């Protein structure tokens, strides 16, 4: 199965590198959103819980764009059939898609987080805070990637794909928003950063586990006929 996951992931990355659609759009959208926040909040700088909120809303909405496009290339080129014909466990497709979405999110964050720090963040983060931020990003991204893959697979077969993805995914991702926002708030505090509240990290991990299991159990039913 790892051979299949490798082949699928390689194909995803090749496609995106060859004809970049998803990552540039997400990155550009994040930066635009940050600018909109500046004008909407009428502030030059944010800190603490407001900063966490701005960052996570931006990342979440950018993720919705990516999720909508995740299965489109396969759907249009009849590509899922090609995979289904191979003597390969269907879970390989799930793992590959989650890994691909995770990679896309990470690439976007390489742009969005520095942009956020430059454009809107008040207190300058230290190395330790950055490391902790990366840890929270990783956990939250895993949750977004798993839920996104499940929702993306559900929505790709429907007629109103771009509308349905946010409608389905946003309520399902609220626990991720809760955990991530609460976990990163102390990192952006004005009067010097606090430590990482473990309770929220635990919530994120629990979410990742639960949805990981759900996706593993249900994904086959979405791709098989």
């Amino acid at each position, binding site marked *: 199965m790892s051979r299949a996951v490798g082949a699928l992931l390689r194909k995803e990355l090749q496609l995106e590198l060859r004809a970049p659609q998803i990552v540039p759009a997400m990155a550009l959208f994040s930066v635009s959103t940050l600018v909109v926040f500046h004008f909407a909040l009428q502030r030059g700088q944010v800190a603490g819980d407001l900063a966490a909120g701005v960052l996570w809303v931006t990342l979440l909405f950018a993720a919705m764009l990516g999720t909508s496009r995740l299965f489109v290339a396969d759907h249009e080129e009849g590509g899922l059939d090609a995979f289904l014909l191979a003597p390969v466990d269907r879970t390989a497709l799930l793992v590959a898609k989650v890994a691909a979405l995770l990679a896309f999110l990470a690439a976007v964050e390489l742009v969005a987080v520095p942009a956020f720090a430059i454009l809107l963040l008040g207190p300058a983060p230290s190395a330790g805070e950055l490391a902790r931020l990366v840890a929270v990003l990783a956990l939250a991204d895993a949750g977004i990637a798993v839920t996104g893959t*499940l929702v993306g697979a*559900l929505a790709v*077969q*429907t*007629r*109103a794909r771009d509308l*349905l993805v946010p*409608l*389905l995914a*946003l*309520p*399902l991702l*609220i*626990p991720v928003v*809760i*955990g991530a926002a*609460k976990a990163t708030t102390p990192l952006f505090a004005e009067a010097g950063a606090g430590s990482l509240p473990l*309770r929220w990290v635990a*919530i994120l991990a*629990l*979410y990742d586990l*639960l949805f990981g299991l*759900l996706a593993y159990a*249900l994904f086959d*039913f*979405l791709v098989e*006929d």
Partner: protein
Amino acid sequence: MRYGTRLTTLSLLTAATMTAALALAFFYAPMDADQGFMQKIFYVHVPLAIVALCGFVFGGVMAIQHLRTRDPRYDLRSYVAIHLSLVLGAGVLVTGAIWAKASWGHWWVWDEPTLVSFLIIFLLYATYQPLRFSIEDPERQARYASVFAITAGAFVPLNFVAVRLAQSYTHPRVFATADGGLPPRMQVAFLVSLAAFALLFVTLWRYEMTSKHASAQLRSLRRKLTADGDRGLPARGRSAAPSLPSP
């Protein structure tokens, strides 16, 4: 399963229990010291919420059965349960808002984690019918709807936990759990009310199941009567509701 049987009995029983619940709530249960008369809405709001949540979970369980057995009847059961629970859910939010306005002067408060969680659940399940409607292939529609119902059903408890943890509320818990903290007369009224709404759900569920089965039978009879198969039938438009195969 013959859903049409016992409908009259169930309806009468539901009506009777509802009347009893209303009577108990208004005349038997004592007035709440803090909140006065508006607290009585608690006897509608909480049972509605409990029944709706159970309905969603039941929909999820039926969906699991549907995926396991591929029997479209389970899909129909799941669909009816979820769509009824959604209607009840709207009732929960409305009664919650009324009560919030009466208690705190605002139509919505973020302090009550159960209500907030319910809003999220409602928003999620509100996408169930649009999701179904936008998938044309009936078999795929049923299958995807079941995946959604299971995901949403599993999400319900996680959501409640997450929201409860998130609300660092200073506001006192207004709804003490039904088991503890309620004086006995209130408990009686509450339990009867809960029974009444549960019966309402079951009765409505059966009515809708009967109606759907009847339409399916009617269509299959029509098909058998028109000699040239399904060319003689009026085209069935796209629909969010599951179709049953001819029995």
